[in-house]
């Protein structure tokens, strides 16, 4: 009997070892929580300059930045001498968590059917286990805005931190209703519509969004009246409900618009309707900088690494776009508009930096500026006492390719720098068996 038990436990142990070994190849290491003391690193605070200091992370916050910080007894120290500490990068527009394999439609949740569906919530469909999320983190991106796209009102995007096991854990405190502004001009040399037809199509498209907005305003008026009289709503209208905060100017509307003519129409439209607007994409923003500035339009532009839309455009139009807008005084964030390669965000910023923006401003475009646009700059976008502990430690300039990001923290969790890509490297750099 004893022998049998021994035998059984041997088998059990064997299976446990076997299973854990197999599992470990499939899983990312677990994150570790603090408190952490990051000692003696060069802090790139973004908002208060660069300086050498210690940082204490406790819970999900940066509780202290300075020298001789008193630390709790269980604090783990990380020597950052000669290292650089940056706030986590924020991508102002992605499909991360909503798109897994773009050619397989059932793995894509960023475009629901319908043209007027602002109530579709990205946060509902964020997949915390998307393989692309750890891949994105390794380049210092800690937070992204993931959004629905394609239709005129495709839904509501959400700002998420790239760590957590549920969408709720990942939610970073901001959502935004998305709109795709109708593109009304000639689409290219194969677009053979007559000028008259183009005008008609344009009027039709504008009519459509004007109708929606007229109804939305009316709906808001009725809704307010019902609230005053404390009467219940008479019908279920989730689309209009989703627009209420925008119509009441409590929330911004995120409008995708790229071509110069469309941007001009969009500015006119938001002005007429008194909308607090953030324009996204804005590929030809450099052609209308003063118009955008005069109307206080905030901008999330990108990708920077994009072919200019016109054959006649200079080769570097997309590289210079962000710089031109920043110089005009516009609040600009940079996005990749990507899913699996959001990790290229720092390189998009670096190209903008080289082509006129400068490194400091480029860094703002992927940290404090998006935080301001999404209204979370009290907690995100820089290294300051009291802010959320989203930051990373690198051995140099994080835009340069030779630099390594060595540690990354999201909400105070030390998240391992592992992803499918690093695991495959570890397994195959010296394959066993080899040839």
């Amino acid at each position: 009997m004893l022998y049998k038990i021994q035998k059984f436990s041997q088998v059990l142990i064997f299976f446990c070892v076997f299973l854990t070994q197999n599992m470990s190849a499939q899983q990312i290491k677990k994150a570790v929580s603090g408190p952490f003391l990051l000692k003696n690193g060069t802090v790139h605070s973004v908002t208060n300059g660069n300086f050498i200091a210690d940082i204490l992370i406790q819970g999900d916050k940066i509780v202290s930045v300075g020298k001789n910080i008193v630390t709790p007894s269980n604090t783990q120290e990380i020597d950052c001498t000669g290292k650089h500490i940056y706030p986590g990068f924020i991508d102002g527009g992605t499909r991360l968590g909503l798109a897994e394999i773009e050619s397989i439609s059932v793995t894509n949740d960023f475009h629901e059917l319908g043209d007027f569906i602002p109530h579709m919530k990205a946060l509902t469909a964020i997949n915390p286990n998307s393989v692309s999320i750890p891949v994105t983190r390794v380049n210092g991106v800690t937070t992204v805005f993931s959004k629905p796209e394609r239709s005129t009102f495709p839904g509501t995007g959400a700002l998420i931190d790239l760590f957590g096991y549920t969408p709720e854990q990942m939610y970073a405190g901001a959502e935004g209703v998305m709109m795709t502004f109708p593109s009304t001009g000639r689409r290219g040399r194969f677009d053979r519509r007559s000028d008259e037809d183009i005008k008609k199509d344009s009027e039709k498209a504008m009519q459509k969004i004007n109708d929606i907005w007229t109804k939305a305003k009316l709906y808001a008026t009725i809704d307010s009246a019902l609230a005053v009289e404390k009467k219940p709503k008479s019908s279920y209208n989730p689309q209009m409900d989703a627009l209420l905060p925008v119509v009441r100017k409590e929330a911004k509307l995120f409008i995708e618009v790229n071509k110069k003519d469309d941007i001009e129409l969009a500015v006119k439209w938001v002005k007429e309707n008194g909308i607090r607007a953030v324009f996204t994409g804005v590929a030809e923003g450099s052609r209308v900088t003063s118009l955008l500035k005069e109307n206080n339009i905030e901008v999330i532009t990108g990708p920077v690494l994009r072919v200019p839309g016109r054959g006649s455009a200079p080769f570097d139009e997309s590289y210079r776009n962000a710089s031109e807008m920043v110089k005009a005084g516009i609040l600009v964030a940079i996005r990749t508009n990507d899913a699996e390669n959001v990790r290229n965000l720092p390189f998009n910023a670096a190209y903008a930096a080289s082509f006129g923006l400068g490194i400091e401003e480029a860094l703002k475009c992927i940290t404090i500026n998006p935080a301001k646009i999404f209204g979370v700059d009290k907690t995100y976008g820089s290294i300051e006492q009291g802010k959320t502990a989203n930051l990373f430690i690198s051995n140099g300039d994080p835009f340069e390719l030779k630099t390594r990001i060595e540690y990354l923290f999201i909400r105070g969790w030390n998240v391992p720098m592992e992803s499918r890509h690093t695991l495959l490297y570890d397994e195959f750099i010296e394959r066993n068996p080899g040839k």
Partner: protein
Amino acid sequence: MNTRIIYTTLLCFLLPFIGFNQGSILIKNGTILTVTKGTLQNADIFMENGKITDIGKNLKAPVGTKTVDATGMFVMPGIIDAHSHIAIDAVNEATSPNTADVNVGDALNPLDVAIYRALAGGVTISHAMHGSANAIGGQCETIKHRYGVVNPEELRMVGAPRTIKFALGENPVRVHGEGNKISPATRMGVEQVFRQAFSEAKLYMKAWDEYKKGLILNSPMYNRRLETIADILKGNIIIHCHSYRADEILMLMNVLKDFGIEKICFQHVNEGFKVAPELAAFGASASVFSDWWAYKFEVYYSTAYNAAILTRNGVVTSINSDSDELIRHLYLEAAKTQRYGDLNDDEALALITINPAKQLGIDHRVGSIEIGKEGDIAIFDKHPLSVYTIPQMTIVDGIIRFDINNDAPDMRLDVNPEDKFASDYLEEALLKEDNCLQGVSEWLLQSDHASYLRFIYSQRHSH
């Protein structure tokens, strides 16, 4: 006597081209990244009639020679893109699983502004490829970026070896199996397309051989498709095969072994890292993306460390663009191998210079800065592997084709002031990162696979 007349006449025709497209220029005092022979500080390069004739310090050029001061700048060989679809008007002849008879060299478009934008990224040569709709696609063309010429012939890199596009996996299977309901509908079917083509070409060669020996009376029917496949069997054409998964890569190597074919460069080859020892043993080369993955299922198990793993296993590896966008900054794509796999500077630069040259069979002419090689040069303000570098000047055959200080905003060559529908917006389709399946969707429009079509249109990546 007759041959001499023919040669003289030919030379008369060719002379003007040679004259126009080859120049002399002296680059002074730059940091020269030769790629094959180390780095030279404060050195000069003299190019004469399109060729590098001298490298050294304090070189003197004949009076009147164009001189470029490269003080503080980095001078490297012109970048070579082993996989692109710029400068061609047609990409896919998606009408059969085997279209070896067609040639994208017949569809060259020297007016494509993408050529200029590639030059602005230091790229002097690209491999204009057929798409990946067919297991055996069309023949490809190696072109020089002589932007400014309007005769398509002048884009060709005369003397470059012939190449042909093959394709494995999802694309040929989708287009023919799913789209047309003909084989191949699986990776099993793809293998048999090759075995059938090579076997039939062998019979075809045998028949011609017997006819030439007088063993049979009537000549076999001439067949351009079989002629091309026969040329592959004879070793006269380099195969460039669109591939992703490890199993299909092994499959093609096995087929090639059976038919004694050696010249093969695997394109994309996202799972090449899994079979790097096998690739090295076969002598196959690999042309990869720096970091593209997950846009379709067959690239879901990818790693950006692919180029590094392949390089460490001794596979001749290049990084390509397959995109109007990436071709503008291949030096950034090469630099990514320093973050993903720690390649050193020479290894990283080789990925976009001498290695793609080897894969195209032109490494004795271009791909490094050496005396006797062609005058294809890219000059940068900072080290080309720094993220902040900006290309300053690109030289093809000793002629400056891009100069950032002499760069007009509108560089189009084909503006038609009388076109009342004129719009300078590029087509939305062109703005998508292209495009191994370019042309397929339009073609399927005429068939009845509307749902598939919408699906293809919805794709951002179609490689």
